[in-house]
């Protein structure tokens, strides 16, 4: 056991993994110029294995950081380390272990998205930045709309989707991460329905900024009836809703950013943009909102560097939309169970380093 700990905790392992982490950092930074932040982050840092030049497999950011974490943590089990003289060092390493654990929690459990709210309107859901969903709404029930939602992991080419609330089966034919609508030059096959009768979806190369990508989906409805069975297409931000009447039930088909509903809603009272006097440089942005929970509103001012924290969610002033019909605020919403880790670990590490400096500095000067 001692032997294992000794070899696992050897600082040389740390040195070599840190060198590799630096290589990844440099590559991941340079890559942002070409493929954008999101893609580069996915490729180098949020991956277990990264493919160098798309051919050679190498440890990705996650594996590298797990090795460092194991190396650091096992170091705390060494016997000869627990000495007063090394108290500072132990504390620093403990803080670092916490930092990495926090990073792990964040990487796995955090979710982020945004809310777009017009002035005077309110919203109770968050749009995911990256994930999509296919929602099928049964609008023929009295008093309520029945939603059946398929998340992005299910939207894979060839996947067949069915649910007890639906009398029909959906088969995903094509999922595009980025595509555009193109008018057909010749009449389409009879199989094509809805928008696909006159238009087609054409796949595009991925944009650098992930938000500029427009996802699209081509799917087939089966086992309904002869008028509705066929191939349909949907694209993100489509202006005309795709509807169908199947077995006397009215359905709407929505392809949109994955929504997470909140146990409260937010009403935008006023969005303000203040400029430095006589210039076009923004001095501050702020949204005056009502946080409505159980029907009771509470006034909150969200501004740069002053987010609203509520029920594990944090809402930040992220952007805004100025249109002739009015202003809208864009709030970034984040739920991160790991967000306290860096705060705690930074305090621990600072204390440890200071302690170490105090113990050893006289010797070093």
């Amino acid at each position, binding site marked *: 056991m001692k032997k294992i700990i000794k070899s696992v905790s050897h600082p040389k392992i740390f*040195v070599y993994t840190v060198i590799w982490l630096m290589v990844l950092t440099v590559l991941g930074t340079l890559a942002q110029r070409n493929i954008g932040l999101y893609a580069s982050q996915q490729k180098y840092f949020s991956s277990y294995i990264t493919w160098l030049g798309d051919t050679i497999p190498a440890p990705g950011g996650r594996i590298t950081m797990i090795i460092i974490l194991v190396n650091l943590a096992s170091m705390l089990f060494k016997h000869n380390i627990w000495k007063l003289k090394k108290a500072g060092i132990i504390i620093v390493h403990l803080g670092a272990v916490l930092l990495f654990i926090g990073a792990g929690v964040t990487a796995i459990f955090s979710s982020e998205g945004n809310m777009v709210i017009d002035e005077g309107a309110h919203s109770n859901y968050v749009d995911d930045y990256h994930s999509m969903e296919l929602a099928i709404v049964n609008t023929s029930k009295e008093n309520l709309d029945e939603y059946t939602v398929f998340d992005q992991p299910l939207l894979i080419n060839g996947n067949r989707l069915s649910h007890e609330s639906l009398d029909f089966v959906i088969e995903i034919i094509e999922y595009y991460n980025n595509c555009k609508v193109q008018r057909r030059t010749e009449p389409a096959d009879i199989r094509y329905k809805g928008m696909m009768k006159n238009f087609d979806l054409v796949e595009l190369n991925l944009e650098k900024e992930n938000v500029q990508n427009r996802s699209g989906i081509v799917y087939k409805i089966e086992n309904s009836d002869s008028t509705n069975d066929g191939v349909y297409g949907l694209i993100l931000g489509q202006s005309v809703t795709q509807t169908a009447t199947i077995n006397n039930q009215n359905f709407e088909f929505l392809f949109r950013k994955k929504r997470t509903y909140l146990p409260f809603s937010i009403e935008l009272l006023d969005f303000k943009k203040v400029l430095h006097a006589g210039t076009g440089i923004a001095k501050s942005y702020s949204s005056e909102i009502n946080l409505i929970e159980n029907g009771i509103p509470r006034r909150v001012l969200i501004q740069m560097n002053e987010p609203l924290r509520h029920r594990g969610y944090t809402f*930040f002033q992220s952007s805004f939309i100025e249109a002739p019909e009015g202003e809208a605020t864009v709030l970034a919403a984040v739920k991160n169970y790991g967000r306290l880790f860096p705060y705690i670990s930074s305090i621990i590490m600072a204390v440890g380093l200071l302690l170490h400096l105090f113990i050893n500095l006289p010797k070093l000067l």
Partner: protein
Amino acid sequence: MKFSFRFLMAFLLTLPMVNGKEFDERHFPIQEGGRIKPLDTFARNQLLAFYGKRSVKHEGLSAMDWIFNLILDPEKGQEVTKVFNIRSPEVVASLGLAWTNNDHKYVFNEVFSGLQAQFGLISEIHSRKDETRISFERQLLEIYFNATRFREIAYSLSCLVPAVSVNDPILIEKLNSIPGKRVSYAHLIKYIPLISEIYRNMMEKSEEEWSNTEKELIKILLELQKISSNETAQALKLIPPSHLDKTGTWLSPWELMDGRSHEPHQDKILIALEKYLAGRYEGDKDKMMSAIEDYRVGILSIPNAKPDMYLLKKETWVNEVNLFYTSVAFYLLAFILLGFSRMIQPKWLKIISYVSLILGLVYHTYGIYLRMVIMGRPPVSTLYESIIFVGFTVVVFAVVIEYLRRDGLGLFIGSVSGTILHYVSFGYAADGDTLGMLVAVLNSNFWLATHVTTITLGYGASLVAGFVGHLYLIQAIREPHNSSSLKDIHKNLFGITLIALFLALFGTILGGIWADQSWGRFWGWDPKENGALLIVLWQLMMVHMRLTGLAKPAGFALGMIMNNIVVVIAWFGVNLLNVGLHSYGFTSGVALNLALFAALELITGFGTYYWAQSRKERLIV
């Protein structure tokens, strides 16, 4: 040491006395770039953009003299004064000018006619995005904008300049003017309603029947019409807003000439300015003095958001004395004295060198402090300020090192890097106003004070470590057998590295926390974040390599020299990528300097490392 300390105290006490000046025209508040600044700063910044310097050197004109000369006589200012400094031969050629002109300085009119000939090209460049423009196109466009602004400045007070002479006795009386003296547009349009009767009478007669009075009136009206063609020249925002205004946007005199009603404070300032210009035009010192006093009263009568007189004077004083130039002079002196003390060995030279370094640091600190007072924000918020602050950090470290070691090591580090960093900052200052406003996300004094200051201190400490690394290797070459001295330097190097690591690590984590507060994520692999991370990782690697014996002291020294490259890339290189949330300003031309610096460090670092190794081997043999 005692001697220098007493000297220092005496010096510090005299500092506040040098800057309690009376209010004068340099202090006239003007709004530009989102803040109220003294006219002196405004004039200097404009001149810097046109001419490349803060005063017209070849004619011995100060920025204030230049701007008032231009305003009082725009024709002459455009025809005679050579203030357009064009350094690019391509641009000069495209404007149809001669490169033979030795200092490449041109007058407005020749530049302007060149620009007019190129108008098609310029509007084509203007229509494109900045990334697609080549260097020549950027420069041409910049000169076009400069020329436009120059013209605007030249005429933006033309409504207040004494320009029209009234000679007819009747008109003199009606228009409330003095025989033989010119009056301004603003003055005349106030009294024009009083002569509407004369005008109406005149219109009923034919031109031959006009009296002398009427003939002169027509002449005056034509002149006024000509002057009013400048009403779009609104570059000088000298007039405070109405008390009802909520945006805080100041106005130019021409904006008040559109017939709107003036508020008392606006009127006072307008009239005082008019009087000052008249006094200056007539060379009447007393009139200028009394106008300045009126101006001061006018400013004091501003109902809300009154500009701070103390700060206006302070900033003007800072422009004047340029504390950082004095500071660099002391650093240079410290270096020279240190050199002499090495050659001829007397101890007192070294003490004076130390005092000189400390004096330089005092000026340096005072300069940083005054910038903080003027802007009301922590020391570092722009790249320029980070350079000054890193220089400050390095010298502070050097002073402490010298105090502890007393062998000239600290003096060498402080004087050399203090000087170099000052010169780098002068290069940045030459780009324009260094006291700019900040974009919304940076507008947080708390985080600027904690994260940015800590990380900048970290840069400074890292550079000191790199410097000591160089000195270690040099010492290893000079005296490879002197192991106690080498051990000593190594210990210092390791200690400084730990401090640098602490600052860099803590600064980076604070940055993460700020990012968590304002963008909702602690870490986003943004280039600037990655740059800071690289510094931390590199230093962690070096510390662990040393602890495991993977690196010997000499190797550690080399590693910390290489750390300088990492620091400089993280510091300046990120903006070159031009991606990410942190790239607030694109700096061109930096790439070459970065590459040169990296090459220099690589060559000297590895060169001295292997040389030191071979010296050691020879000793063992």
